[in-house]
């Protein structure tokens, strides 16, 4: 029997190969490029020399609303909806390896699009180099939201992508803007904390990172339970 690690690697490799041969990467590239174009245009048109870093962050979080949905939710949702999981789950592999393998293949892609987008957008708009903390923030945010997207796709495969976008639009982004402790439920809020967008201490950044991981981890746990019981 193939080991769990090898299974995960193989599924990740196949997922990446399929992604590269499709058009989703191009669409993701267009989405990731939008904040760069915006920042450049805004910088050109604004009276002051630099723009507010918060504006660029706001657009980057919108990119975070779309990319995990495009790559993770749609890939897993399509796999379940098209019943190609029958090929995987009739093999002697643990069921969780399919979900984890997909994440291993796709999360780096999401991060690989978000981070350069953030870097170039800030360069174009504010002539600034992003801090290491902000890179870490968006990486952790992309990771956590990918876990959320994966689970939503296992729960509602046909509309996983749409529901992930709705989750961001109607829950994560608005809740992150609320005062009080409800904010802790929002990944984008934690991203802003880690990236030093809000008043923070080193401790709060650490707690925010933990918050992201906890939210993502909780969703992943639901996804793993779901996948364990899912019938093809």
């Amino acid at each position, binding site marked *: 029997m193939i080991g769990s690690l090898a299974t995960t690697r193989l599924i990740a490799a196949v997922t990446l190969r399929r992604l590269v041969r499709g058009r989703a990467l191009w669409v993701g590239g267009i989405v990731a490029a939008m904040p760069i174009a915006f920042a450049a245009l805004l910088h050109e048109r604004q009276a002051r020399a630099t723009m507010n870093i918060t504006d660029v962050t706001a657009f980057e979080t919108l990119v975070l609303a779309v990319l995990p949905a495009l790559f993770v939710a*749609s890939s897993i949702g399509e796999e379940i909806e098209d019943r190609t999981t029958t090929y995987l789950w009739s093999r002697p592999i643990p069921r969780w390896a399919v979900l984890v393998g997909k994440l291993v293949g796709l999360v780096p892609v999401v991060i690989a699009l978000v981070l350069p987008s953030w870097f170039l957008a800030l360069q174009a708009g504010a002539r600034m180099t992003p801090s290491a903390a902000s890179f870490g923030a968006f990486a952790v945010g992309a990771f956590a939201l990918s876990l959320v997207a994966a689970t939503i796709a296992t729960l509602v495969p046909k509309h996983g992508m749409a529901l992930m976008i709705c989750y961001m639009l109607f829950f994560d982004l608005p809740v992150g803007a609320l005062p009080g402790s409800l904010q802790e439920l929002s990944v984008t809020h934690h991203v802003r904390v880690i990236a030093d967008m809000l008043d923070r201490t080193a401790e709060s950044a650490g707690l925010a990172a933990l918050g992201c991981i906890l939210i993502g981890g909780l969703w992943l746990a639901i996804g793993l339970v779901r996948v364990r019981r899912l019938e093809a």
Partner: protein
Amino acid sequence: MTELEGPGFSPETGTTEAPVGAIHDLGYKRYLGTRRDPRTRWRVIAREQVASAWKFWWRFKAAFGLAAIITAIAGGMMLFTSDRKSSLGRAQGFAMQLIDTTLPESIIWFCRAGFVVSLTIGATVVASDVQSGAFTFYFARSVKPHHYVIGKLAGMCALLALILVAGPLVIAGLRLGVSDDVDQLVDLLPILWKTLVIGGVATLAYAAVPLGFSALMPNRRNALALWAAYYLVFGAMVYELGKVSSGSLAALDLPRAVQTITYALFDLNFRSRDAQIPVAAAVASLAGHVVVAVALVSYQVRRAQRTGVGGAS
């Protein structure tokens, strides 16, 4: 085929009389009755669109439920805060009753519910048909491309009207219902046609534009992602750009364009920190979006008809 002793056999005469009765062939027969007028084929497509949207919970009912909640909240706000002043326009010296601003303020929320429908249905309609090979079925029959385009558009409009027209109309009705007296009621009657106009314009935009995106990409998920990125990211971008440059640029943001028309119709014309979108630009933006979207769908469908697209993949 006859039997040795079948019906009609007469032992006395030794002959078999001709059987009385008729045998009905119950096998397939080509339909020879009246047929629907070809010009109404689009209605069949529209009806099918609505029926299939209503079938499952996540396709339409969830967004419809959201619209119902928005209606209930807006209605509740109107009923219980009728004597409160709205914050809208306060900085510019406008003093408006919350009861009067609830309806125009709620339009943006109905637009969000409409966006949800566009995600679950609108932005994947044509791409799904391309992927599944449905065009083979359409064009193997006497369905013309424009039947398909009109049918799909009409179906989407019917669904979105339930959110973008019905919801605001209910709130408008409530507003009329809480009028102080008959004179006020008569004065407020124009909000009904204004609501209809706004609802109609928003319905057309939220029906057509996602359809256009679904025709842009042959893959469902890519079409959906592009539409979401256009609506959320690009829309926010042009709105922010519009704040610092021309307000007309901000009209490319669909919900803001709808909101601009709403504010104009309800005479909520005041300057604020928001981008000042000229009404003409908002109308032109929505009209332009609809025209381009319909053109895209028409082109894709005609192309599918010409190339015989239909291979299921």
